[in-house]
């Protein structure tokens, strides 16, 4: 039997969050009443002309640089011609053979191993409007009418095309997540999959392991979460392998991911869909990126998630945790860095930051917790002054009040009693009151110790260090 190798490439559309649209002054804004952010330009009215948004062009250059691409010194807009009701001019201003950025890469991380994925290109284009199909379950072919909302029409869109370097559904997901994190880091897009401000399409093919040539590729669309992207790619890989093993062949087409069915289904193939009759957009001048501008944008790039991940790993944080921490909220990372600077162990701190602190802050957003405060809390746990579960309680209160860990622990009366004399006394008292249990223990029934620990803990109000109680009990029982 043949072993099959999946080959996956990803195309990403990123909606930029510039103040205005790509070619007009309308606001870029989501969730507003239909057709409120529109003008003659983004409605494609007769006579209207586009003017390119400089902020959007700066954003795509930054994306290109962050993906280690070459920035073309000169780049051209083209018209991509096709008829669609929510495409007001019936052509999309896009870029055909002279994209802004080419030949880059992104290092992704999966299960602790790093993998370099090639980036073929990143180009600038405009988004379309939205069709809202009425009736017939909202599907185009059964709808009774369609309403059009042009608020999204003309929103700046960056398309990033990877090389077919991914070899599994899990890798496809890791690439998508890491790319999303990079876009978020650059702060150029809301990058929310569920709102469609970042959209992933996958090109999937399979070939026998060792084969040089690529198999027939199928484009899959309509995945609106990382999970559905992974499921869709996995399902498509399976489908293609089943086809090939059954002696059939794969047809080049576009397939739609059906989340409920858990499979892809064929979309009606567009007639002549490959001939978009691209030609240079005569209403716009060629884009020229001066070397010094590109250099400035390059040196102004923030630390990128992949670089940060390596830095955390270098500090001793395990790969998986380092990846999560590298992509987490900057505020959380600031707390991490401060706590480590105040002497906390990086790995322990990373676990607390990506685990408990993330959870607490998600429930109660607050800016009152500082890295030094977290370091104090972790030190108390380490020194046996707080149990782990009590520390979580303390953390919640620290977030709410902004007080130091020791203050909170005292106020909530959660400090562990590590005073040996007090514990000795409590143990003596419990043993004196429980001669029957003592006898059972001494006759070999060791599990009675649990019962006795419980009594001591109760008599100390739960604040005694359980380890110390256990030791003391055993010593006195033997004695």
């Amino acid at each position: 039997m043949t072993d099959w190798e999946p080959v996956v490439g990803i195309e990403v559309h990123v909606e930029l969050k510039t103040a205005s649209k790509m070619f007009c002054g309308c606001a870029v804004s989501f969730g507003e009443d239909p057709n409120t952010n529109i003008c003659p330009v983004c409605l494609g009215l007769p006579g209207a002309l586009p003017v390119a948004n400089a902020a959007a062009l700066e954003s795509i250059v930054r994306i290109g640089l962050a993906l280690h691409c070459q920035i073309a010194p000169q780049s051209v807009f083209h018209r991509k011609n096709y008829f669609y009701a929510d495409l007001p001019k019936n052509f999309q201003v896009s870029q055909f053979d002279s994209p802004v950025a080419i030949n880059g890469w992104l290092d992704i991380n999966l299960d602790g191993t790093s993998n370099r994925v090639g980036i073929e290109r990143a180009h600038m284009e405009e988004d379309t409007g939205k069709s809202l199909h009425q009736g017939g379950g909202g599907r185009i072919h059964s709808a009774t009418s369609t309403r059009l909302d042009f608020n999204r029409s003309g929103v700046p869109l960056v398309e990033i095309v990877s090389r077919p370097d991914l070899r599994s559904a899990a890798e496809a997901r890791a690439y998508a997540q890491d790319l999303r994190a990079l876009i978020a880091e650059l702060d150029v897009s809301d990058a929310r999959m569920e709102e469609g401000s970042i959209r992933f399409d996958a090109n999937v093919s399979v070939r026998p392991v060792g084969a040089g040539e690529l198999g027939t590729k199928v484009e899959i669309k309509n995945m609106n979460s990382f999970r559905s992207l992974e499921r869709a790619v996995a399902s498509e890989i399976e489908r293609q392998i089943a086809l090939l093993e059954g002696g059939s062949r794969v047809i080049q087409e576009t397939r739609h991911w059906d989340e409920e069915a858990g499979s892809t289904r064929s979309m009606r193939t567009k007639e002549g869909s490959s001939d978009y009759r691209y030609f240079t957009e005569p209403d716009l001048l060629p884009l020229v990126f001066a070397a010094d501008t590109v250099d400035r944008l390059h040196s102004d790039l923030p630390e990128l998630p992949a670089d940060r991940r390596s830095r955390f790993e270098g500090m001793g944080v395990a790969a998986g945790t380092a990846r999560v921490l590298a992509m987490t909220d900057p505020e959380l990372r600031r707390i991490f860095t401060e706590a480590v600077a105040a002497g906390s162990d990086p790995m322990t701190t990373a676990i607390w930051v990506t685990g408990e602190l993330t959870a607490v802050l998600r429930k109660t957003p607050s800016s009152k917790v500082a890295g030094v405060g977290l370091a104090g809390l972790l030190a108390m746990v380490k020194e046996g002054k707080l149990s782990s579960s009590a520390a979580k309680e303390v953390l919640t209160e620290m977030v709410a009040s902004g007080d130091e860990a020791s203050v909170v622990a005292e106020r909530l009366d959660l400090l562990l009693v590590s005073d040996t004399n007090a514990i000795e006394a409590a143990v003596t008292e419990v043993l004196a009151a429980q001669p029957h249990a003592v006898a059972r223990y001494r006759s070999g029934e060791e599990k009675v110790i649990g019962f006795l620990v419980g009594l001591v803990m109760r008599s100390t109000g739960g604040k005694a260090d359980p380890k110390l109680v256990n030791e003391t009990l055993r010593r006195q029982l033997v004695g």
Partner: protein
Amino acid sequence: MADLADLTVATAGERLATGEASAADLLDAVIRRASLTEAELHCYVTIDHDGARRAAEESDHRRSRSESRGPLDGIPLALKDNFCTRGLETTCSSQILSGYRPPYDSTVVARLRDGGAVIVGKTNLDEFAMGSSTENSAFGPTRNPWNPERVPGGSSGGSAAAVAAGSALAAFGSDTGGSIRQPAALCGVVGFKPTYGLVSRFGLVAFSSSFDQIGPLARSVADALTLFEAVAGHDPLDATSYPGTVPEARPSLETGVKDVRIGLVRELSGEGYEPAVTAATNDMVAQLEASGAIVSEVSLPSFAIALSAYYLIAPAEVSANLARFDGVRYGLRVTGETVEEMMARTRAEGFGPEATRRILLGTYALSAGYYDAFYGQAQRVRTKLINELANVFEQVDVLVSPASPTTAFELGAKTQDPLAMYLTDVCTIPANLAGTPAISIPVGLDADGLPIGFQVMGPALGEARLFQVAAEVERLATFDHRPEILAAAGDRL
């Protein structure tokens, strides 16, 4: 005293300044003229009686308070019906835009309104400016005031005829392949196409974006310059708008042509050129030489293939520019079972034969497998022509030629033969391919009493030199003929 409708903009301006006439008087005169000529000539698609009246009254009111805004304040002008005018029907002489009222003014219209101009109405054109006779209008042809059996040229035929007939003192048109200069020549008026980028295209319904340029049609070279100055200059809404300052041409109107190097274009003569046109051209060149110009004959081989390149590039751009007319958002909608069917039916019914022909031609030229042979090759010709022109303008200051190989032809003479119609733009197209300025000035009449136009072409941003020569041509030609229809109309006044 001449009828106010026959004044130049400059003279009308003097009358307004001295109080001999009001803006309302001028408007009355052109409206009266229109009422006598429109039934026969059909220069206008829409006359904006109320808007024009209001604008004239406001102008007179400003003048009474000495707040007049410049040389166009109170002057009744006509606009080709492919300029977007807020709230005023803008049809491009197409069924597909019948009844369409834009929600905004084009930049040129906004500048004219700011300058106090009185916009009389919107003039007829070949549908979407595609044609050379104004016979491709969905609302019927415009006729030539010099002989109503003849075409006025096109596509700005309505504007040219209105200026010739006196139903506006001057007008604006758009020139994509000669659409200002050729009708100006056929109607005996001055028509000027500026350097590409000097006048904003924002709000001009696009025909072929890389060629389209707005310009004036007027009764004198000085008037043409006045209209140009009123609308030229950078517009942040048009990315192809020239960011520098507009060349200053007014001082050169009076300087004459002594020692100006003039090149007569060899390729724009010979077969297909009416003898009267050739004779008038040569005669004018001789007069210029006699006035001190240094004349030589120059050759621009690419001019011979400019027409072919133009008829590939322009339709390619048309196929995309006209794609937006689909019945979805505005204009004509013919319903269908599906969205695709609605779009297809709307377009099939909404566009006339010439628009359809060019959309198909352009779609084909851009198709996979044909792109390089057609569109790509045409762009290479365009580059070659630009280089040839740049070289020739090292040797001469301006080029001269006929503005049209023939005088006005009869209605219907070329409607069955698109190629013959396309050939009428042979003299004017090179300046569009190169984006350079060119002007047509009337220099005489042929044996049938039809006007002959003389073209002067300059290098990009060479407007000063262009107007210098054009003004001398105008002085030498002393063209003071009037269409007969006006003499007849005059009797009825």
